[in-house]
């Protein structure tokens, strides 16, 4: 049976937890190193201290060794053993060997020093004393030994006297334990203090985030005014981003509100007109007049339906622009297709649609929006053309620009009105044709979304040219 081990999702941990974990791991690692180092240090310093006692005792004994009547005589000084008694509970063993390892006094079964070490240790400096330390087991206990050699020279004698002293290791072990216990206590204390400081630091670091959170939580859902909080630099970026986001959201909401009220107005007024026209037709007794009135009702209904269509398509467009990614679009195909679709309705109106353009015009764009824009511009041109005239569509590209121009031979737009036609629901006062007043506004929105410029110029001898120019590089 397989066990599924669920790995904790580290990326969802709280920052506090992550920081605490990391610092704890670091602190523990450092502390362990410290403990190890302090134990080594404790052992070394205890070893050193008690080795000095051993050396001291051996030197004191060495001083009391002399030749008497050609014999080596060791007159053990009590002081040497009082030195050793500074480790009060440790057993002491000793022996003194003359030249050729002749036993002079002391324990005759002590372990010898590792042979190679005695002869070479410290012999280079020509000192009269040479010494070596070693550990061995003796009588069932761990014993630390020193072997001290002294060159004994008299007129008729010269040879090395060896003094060996051993001491059990109770005192040095307990000293080492004591030192490392102290170190351990200190390290433990430092660990706790460090952990406390780190926790405090983390708390202080994260407090601005908490403040930001509670400031946001306290807000009403419609309050989109910028946050004003004193926060560290790292977090002020976040606050700026939030403020920017809220500002955009506010703009969007404002636009939506404006659009809704305008749309309501634009629908309510024609509806009221429609209703009164229908009422008039009902009341009219003369059949010819009633027919005319009913025709007007139909016309109004067409215009209203046009308006509603435009409003809906604008809403869809706005949504698409916000939600959809751009894709490579063959603009020449798209324009040709739109021309083909509108050629027939144009002919019904007595308007001819001519297309002239380069092939393979590729563009990174939102196809739906572009189609909407092209359709609006073409419809607009057809609508304002006189019967028997021509609408010319051109598509050109060079290295840096793609430009689409639609020229009609209609009445054109006076220069003073040109900037106004992009506003929603603007209708020229001299305009008698049907139209919602939204077509160019939508085209302008799509063009700005693609960072293209949309320009209105006069056609010769009369008419309007709409030119959309895309920057090749700057297109999304």
């Amino acid at each position, binding site marked *: 049976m397989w066990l599924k081990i669920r790995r904790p999702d580290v990326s969802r941990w709280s920052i506090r937890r992550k920081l605490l974990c990391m610092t704890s791991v670091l602190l523990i690692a450092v502390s362990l190193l410290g403990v190890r180092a302090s134990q080594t240090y404790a052992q070394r310093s205890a070893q050193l201290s008690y080795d000095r006692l051993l050396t001291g005792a051996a030197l004191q004994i060495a001083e009391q060794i002399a030749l008497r009547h050609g014999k080596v*005589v060791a007159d053990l000084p009590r002081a*040497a053993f009082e030195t050793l*008694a500074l480790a*009060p509970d440790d*057993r002491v063993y000793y022996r003194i060997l003359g030249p050729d390892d002749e036993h002079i*006094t002391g324990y005759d079964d002590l372990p010898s020093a590792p042979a190679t070490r005695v002869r070479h240790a410290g012999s280079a400096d020509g000192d009269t004393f040479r010494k070596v330390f070693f550990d061995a087991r003796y009588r069932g206990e761990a014993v630390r030994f020193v072997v001290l050699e002294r060159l004994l020279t008299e007129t008729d004698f010269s040879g090395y006297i060896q003094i060996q002293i051993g001491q059990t290791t109770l005192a040095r072990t307990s000293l080492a334990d004591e030192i490392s216990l102290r170190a351990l206590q200190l390290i433990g204390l430092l660990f706790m203090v460090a952990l406390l400081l780190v926790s405090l630091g983390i708390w202080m670091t994260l407090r601005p985030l908490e403040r930001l959170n509670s400031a946001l939580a306290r807000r009403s859902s419609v309050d989109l005014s910028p946050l004003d909080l004193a926060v560290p630099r790292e977090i002020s970026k976040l606050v700026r981003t939030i403020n920017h986001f809220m500002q955009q959201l506010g703009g969007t909401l404002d636009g939506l509100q404006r659009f809704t009220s305008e749309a309501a107005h634009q629908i309510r007024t024609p509806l009221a007109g429609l209703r009164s026209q229908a009422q008039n037709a009902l009341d009219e007794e003369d059949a010819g007049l009633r027919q005319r009135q009913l025709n007007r009702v139909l016309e109004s209904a067409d215009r209203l339906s046009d308006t509603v269509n435009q409003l809906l398509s604008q809403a869809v467009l706005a949504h698409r622009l916000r939600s959809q990614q751009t894709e490579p679009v063959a603009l020449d195909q798209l324009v040709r297709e739109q021309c083909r679709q509108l050629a027939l309705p144009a002919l019904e109106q007595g308007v001819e649609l001519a297309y002239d353009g380069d092939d393979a015009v590729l563009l990174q764009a939102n196809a739906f929006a572009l189609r909407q824009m092209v359709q609006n511009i073409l419809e607009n041109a057809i609508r304002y053309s006189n019967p028997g005239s021509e609408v010319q569509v051109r598509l050109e590209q060079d290295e840096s620009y793609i430009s689409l121009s639609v020229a009609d031979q209609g009445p054109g737009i006076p220069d003073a009105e040109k900037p106004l036609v992009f506003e929603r629901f603007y209708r020229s006062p001299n305009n008698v044709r049907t139209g919602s007043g939204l077509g160019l506004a939508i085209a302008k929105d799509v063009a700005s979304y693609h960072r293209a410029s949309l320009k209105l110029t006069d056609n010769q001898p009369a008419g309007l040219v709409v030119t959309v120019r895309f920057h090749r590089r700057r297109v999304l």
Partner: protein
Amino acid sequence: MRLSRLLTGLLLSATAAALQAETLWALPAKGTQASVLQIHGGADFVAIAPVLEAYQRKYPSIRVNYHEFGTRELYNRFLADLPKTPDLVMSSAMDLQFKLVNDGYAQPYRSAETQALPDWARWRNEIFGITYEPAVMVINSGFLDNETLPSSRAELIDLIRRKGDQVRGRIGTFDIETVGIGYLVWSHDNLRTASNGRLLESFSLHDTQLFSSSAAMLQQLALGNIVIAYNVLGSYAHAWARKYPVLSVVLPSDYTTVIMRSAFIPRASGNAPDAQRFLDFMLSLQGQQILADKSSLYPIRDDVSGETSAQNLRLSYSSPLRPIPLGVSLLVQTDAMKRSLILEEWRRAFEAPRGPGASAADDQ
């Protein structure tokens, strides 16, 4: 006499040399015998008997075999008999006792009684001081002619010089070659102070007699055959002084060396529990009180009352008491070469001027 009731044991072996002597005092259990406690002791049986008797009253099922030796013989026998050991070893020869313990022959024991001992009276919880014995001088004041008693070693040397022929051949001390306590105290003083040399010179000039036991020395002192006894154990001295008022006990005011009778339980003891009980009993208030009251030994505990108690000793004498501590410096005295150097000096002092009638009375 009370002792005679106890002495059901017999002199088991008396070999040719007196030092080889071993005396067995067998004390059968007061009730049904359940175990046997083997004790090797360097103390006179007479001195330790009251404690043994009280111990057996408290634990009636234990039979005690008390083997008495000279202190040096006790040491040699311990090593010779290995790996067989007794259950408890008691002796006043601290140096030899300590050497055995240092060499790992003792087992540790901790109890409330052992922990109550002062630091210098125990070592590694393996060896324990039981009694507290000052080494004193005893003067037969009959010969002083109303002169004040010498209170220090310097005054003693001065007195000997002034009296000259009056004290010649009438000074007694231990023969340190044969008496363990004698060697212990003398060698300790030798290592601690320089004035010992002057004392030795003075002794050798005045044909000092060497004794191998306190009893023999004090007897000669009571009889007036000698007038000064040096380095006698205080407990014996006080006992004799009570009997013979002419004897005055002096604790030297320069310093008074104090030795301890000590005990340890050998590692290979076959009956450690009884040995531990006996050790605890000796260190208990009851045991120490018996030592003080009936054996005239100075108990080591501070809280025991009576004439011979450590407390009384500290309070009633102005002399500085210097206990020989149980510690590794005792090893110096056990060193064979050191011992031969000390004995050599001792012999040199006594060989040349040795006069007639100065030979040691060997009555152990």
